């Protein structure tokens, strides 16, 4: 890979090769959603500012779906961000049950209660160990 990155539109960043696998396996993990080989320190700062979850891990999860061929960098970022919001939401909802039980820490049963009570979490039923 050249020292400077190709100026490709963000949406089709991962689309170039048309191959199903990671188009650039030699590339360092795109943690900041940064396809460019910029200074890693700068990229990591960007990462922490905008998305807390590592985009590389999110992308790996997305690719576990056999029907998914390619995903734009932006879509990986948005899913990472949505997942963060999801964790916040479920943590807050579980907290309500912990407080009902006069506790200050979250227990597994608080989570189970939240999942059972809240419609948006219905997709989780039966999926957790």
């Amino acid at each position, binding site marked *: 890979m050249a020292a*400077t990155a190709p100026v490709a539109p963000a949406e089709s960043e991962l689309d170039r090769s048309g191959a199903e696998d990671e188009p650039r396996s030699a590339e360092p993990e795109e943690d900041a959603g940064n396809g460019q080989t910029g200074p890693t320190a700068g990229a990591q700062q960007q990462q922490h500012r905008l998305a807390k979850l590592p985009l590389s891990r999110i992308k790996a999860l997305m690719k576990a779906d056999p029907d998914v061929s390619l995903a734009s960098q932006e879509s990986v970022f948005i899913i990472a961000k949505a997942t963060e919001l999801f964790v916040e939401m479920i943590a807050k909802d579980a907290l309500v049950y912990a407080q009902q039980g006069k506790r200050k820490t979250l227990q597994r049963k608080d989570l189970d209660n939240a999942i059972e009570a809240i419609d948006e979490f219905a997709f989780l039923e039966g999926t957790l160990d």
Partner: protein
Amino acid sequence: MAERPEDLNLPNAVITRIIKEASTCPLREARRAISQAASVFVLYATSCANNFAMKAKRKTLNAGDVMSAMEEMEFERFLQPLREALEAYKKGQKGKKEASEQKRKDKEKKSSSTDENDKSRDEEEDEHMDDEQEGENEGE
């Protein structure tokens, strides 16, 4: 991959931090379950988004597909913060691109004079700010 998709867990430290900032300390079992739930969320959201991409006969999943998926999954409350985050992300990407191009130009000019170097950097910064303002308008 021999592992189940659910085995691809997200980093515990990050998950714990998000939970603590949003509510309170999770016990180990609770954190593990939330982490697992987060992985399931990613898989479900991806599958949902991919359906939209396939319906539009596209092979590449894009940000719009994810937004549609959020609506479908009844997480409309996420849409506004996601749109804002996406704008910030796009700006950041653009800024990075310009920054690396600027670095390249600086490197080339270093071989000649340094005065010219400073001048061009100031000019580039002005351009940068104009672009950002334009970006903000577009975001609205």
